[in-house]
């Protein structure tokens, strides 16, 4: 249950007075209410571990620098609430970036011994059947695309994927407004289409 502002202020004043047990009391007073509130804001089950850690870290940080809070700008609860929401968003972004890297550098996708069933090959096989180009020209194109993300985008394109939401995680832009996501996805796809065009390839994107 959320403590009253008076309760928070009493312990906060003890923090400012540098009482040694004040950090413990402050954290205990606010920890579970903030976890509950943040959990309601981010109810996804996969965040169950992340939510408490974000709140804990925010409170551990706050009690070490309580003077940074400016009472004229917000109540202490609101200040902490804004703080943990920001930290949560940052933690989610960080997680997404990490997962993205894991996908991009997935050795299963890129280092199979026979080298046939990876993303590049899958894209190239699709392109081959839609173009009349010589094998050596296609090889040049394959070498020119060095960014693994481009191959993943191409794969979605040749498979006829049209939803921005499918491309956004590959480009690490899913936290941006939808209009920006659409523009960035379109720009990326256009760039890749242009490259293909230079080789005389036109994708049949279904």
């Amino acid at each position: 249950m959320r403590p009253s502002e008076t309760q928070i202020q009493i312990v906060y004043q003890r923090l400012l007075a540098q009482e040694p047990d004040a950090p413990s009391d402050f954290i205990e007073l606010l920890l579970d209410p903030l976890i509950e509130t943040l959990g309601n804001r981010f109810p996804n089950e996969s965040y169950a571990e992340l939510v408490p850690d974000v709140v804990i870290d925010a409170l551990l940080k706050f009690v070490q620098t309580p003077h940074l809070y400016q009472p004229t700008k917000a109540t202490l609860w609101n200040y902490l609430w804004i703080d943990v929401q920001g930290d949560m968003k940052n933690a989610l972004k960080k997680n997404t970036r990490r997962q993205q890297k894991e996908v991009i550098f997935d050795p299963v996708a890129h280092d199979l011994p026979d080298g046939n069933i990876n993303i590049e090959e899958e894209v190239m096989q699709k392109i081959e059947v839609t173009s009349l180009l010589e094998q050596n020209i296609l090889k040049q194109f394959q070498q020119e695309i060095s960014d693994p993300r481009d191959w993943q985008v191409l794969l979605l394109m040749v498979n006829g994927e049209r939803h921005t939401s499918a491309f956004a995680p590959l480009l690490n832009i899913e936290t941006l407004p939808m209009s920006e996501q659409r523009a960035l996805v379109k720009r990326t796809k256009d760039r890749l289409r242009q490259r293909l065009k230079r080789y005389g390839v036109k994708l049949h994107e279904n």
Partner: protein
Amino acid sequence: MKTNPTPSLVRAAQRAINSPFFLANTLQVYQRIHHLDNETLAALLECQVDDLPRLALCRRPVTEQQEFTRDIALLAHRFHLQADQLAAIIRQVDTLHTWQQHMPFHQQTTSPGLLAAARDRDDIDNETTEENND
């Protein structure tokens, strides 16, 4: 009357180990060196095991003698623990850190032998202080 610490409070105490601001850090170093579990540490301090997470989340008493004594007294009163024992733990870990800072990197260790030496030094310091006070 205080309730048992919630799982999230216990978790917070564990994460506080990483910051020297908190007593958690000092207590953890002491426990590691002496291979003490929570029950043994609580017995040593003569406090409740359930109070350890709350104690761990307290600010580590400052080094200056006057404030140090005041902080220790406050914590002892709050958690019904042995003030001199808590003070001894903090001083031992402090001494160990000081020694480590002055040792070449390859010799740095947290072995019981080094702590024993640090403890001896503390005892000597205490005795000297007592003699001077007499």
